[in-house]
């Protein structure tokens, strides 16, 4: 883990330590998975708290799926330790996974069996209660009417929903969904988002891995960013955004003069005019916004609007990953 801690500290030295709730469902230390010489997962220290929608965010090939497969015991870790639901994996895999539901990569089924029969196959491995829960979970994902049709005739969206139904059979405390929004149409994505929020509302934890920043931002309240196998950052989504540089948007009656004045102010690190004709000021601290307003008004410039620039997760993600790349490119 040493590598990722150092990077995090380097990237955000002024950032307070992330508050981790007491109830941690997944915890890894130095988790590493090599394929030959290549590290697909590299010293990851991950902590997933209970009762949240947790986004595992990273570009394609970042190591998200390998991390999930390692957590679930689908592949062996090369190094490191992990605990799932308080049990050591893979040594106590039966206890660890008893209340975990997972869809890894695209949901796959026996195409010749019906949706209901596919659930029966999995519930046979679980408990009698899981078998009894089949009608309920089919109803929950809206597949009750199509449950007795062969899965081979299902659309991708229906397969995704059946995959979630399969996850719910053991009344899980933790659901792990790998790229669950792949192939869904906008209505399906919106429906999925609602389903995730309802699961979280019930006290379950949902881990969603995705490369779709917008969807993670709309669906999750915690996020971990992974890139090239390393965990770059984890924490509350709001905290992550707050970690960005302090920026304000200013509308005034003389942009050229305002830029000249602000460029000479100590509390302003950078000022530029954005596409909408507003001044985008990067400040040294959050409370410098009032000083900017005062300086402009004192100079006789009319300020009609001054507001914090909202940083999207996408901007923050690109900011973090580009800074990481720059840090790695600095010769030793």
């Amino acid at each position, binding site marked *: 883990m040493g590598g990722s801690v150092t990077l995090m500290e380097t990237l955000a030295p002024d950032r307070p330590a992330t508050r981790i709730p007491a109830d941690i469902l997944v915890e890894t230390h130095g988790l590493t998975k090599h394929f030959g010489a290549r590290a697909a997962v590299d010293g990851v220290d991950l902590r997933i708290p209970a009762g949240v929608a947790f986004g595992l965010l990273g570009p394609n090939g970042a190591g998200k799926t390998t991390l999930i497969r390692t957590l679930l015991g689908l592949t062996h870790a090369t190094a490191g330790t992990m605990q799932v639901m308080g049990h050591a994996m893979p040594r106590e895999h039966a206890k660890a996974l008893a209340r975990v539901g997972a869809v890894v990569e695209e949901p796959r089924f*026996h195409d010749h069996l019906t949706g209901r029969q*596919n659930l029966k*196959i999995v519930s046979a491995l679980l408990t009698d209660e899981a078998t009894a829960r089949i009608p309920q979970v089919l109803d929950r994902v809206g597949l009750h009417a199509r449950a007795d049709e062969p899965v081979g005739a299902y659309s991708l969206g229906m397969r995704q929903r059946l995959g979630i139904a399969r996850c719910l059979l*053991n009344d899980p405390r933790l659901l792990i969904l790998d790229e669950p929004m792949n192939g869904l149409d906008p209505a399906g994505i919106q429906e999925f988002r609602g389903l995730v929020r309802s699961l979280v509302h019930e006290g379950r934890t949902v881990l969603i891995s995705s490369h779709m920043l917008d969807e993670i931002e709309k669906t999750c309240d915690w996020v971990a960013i992974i890139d090239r196998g390393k965990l770059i950052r984890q924490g509350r989504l709001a905290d992550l955004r707050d970690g960005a540089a302090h920026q304000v948007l200013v509308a005034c009656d003389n942009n050229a003069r305002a830029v000249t004045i602000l460029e000479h102010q100590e509390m302003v690190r950078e000022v530029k005019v954005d596409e909408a004709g507003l001044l985008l000021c990067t400040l040294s601290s959050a409370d410098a916004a009032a000083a900017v307003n005062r300086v402009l008004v004192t100079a006789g410039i009319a300020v009609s609007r001054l507001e914090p620039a909202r940083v999207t997760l996408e901007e923050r993600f690109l900011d973090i990953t580009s800074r990481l790349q720059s840090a790695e490119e600095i010769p030793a």
Partner: protein
Amino acid sequence: MNRVLPMVNAEFLKLRTRRGLVILSTVLCAVSVVLVNAIISIYHAVDPINNGPAGGLHGFTDSLDLFTIAGGLAAVLIGATAGAQDVSSGVFRSLVATGQSRVKLALVRIPGGLMLLLPLLAAGYAVEVLASFVLADGTPTPDAASLLIGAGWLLALAVLNYTVTLGLAALLRSRGTAIGVMIAWELAGSRAIERISVFGSWRQLVSSFALDRFLPGATDTVQLSHVDSITVTLGAAVAVVVAWIVVAIALGTWRTATQDA
């Protein structure tokens, strides 16, 4: 998690709902027996001097050859499907992610597939036994001992072919490759070894020689050609069949327990 019985039923469900597999296996195990007896009966009715009856002891003994090919092939098809279907469909990882024992996942396939195969073979054997009496046309009929030995041989044939193919399919993670290897072994591999006299008594390790030792009327001496024979005692035959089954299951289970899902 003692879920053995539901898991076995789940394996059976996966197999019995494969329409093509069930139809083909039924044709091989039972329909073929009806067809062969019908054709021989027609020939016998048309020319009884040159064509013996379908039934009787002779017809019964001949029918066991049919079971070797058709029943053996059905066992191979069902075994290969049972051994590879979870991996090839991509469902294996979902099963592993439940936390259920991988060894148990592998082992429940054995009874699960035999639940489909054995009733089909039993039906075919019942038809053959019936035909051997009804279509005897006055010739001697098999006695109870022959029928029991025949049933025991058929059971050994089914279990051996099924489990070896099951283990092979799990090991290779491929249904088609496992079927190909089994057919190649039966058609070419074992026959080539049979002709290499330098192997001497090591040839009793070939499963088909051991299996033939269980046939009604078989002796310890297996005549391979006019000048070449090997000795296969009943004890050695049992040991060879058990060894093939155990090794195949062990390899398939090891692969299931250790492979990336």
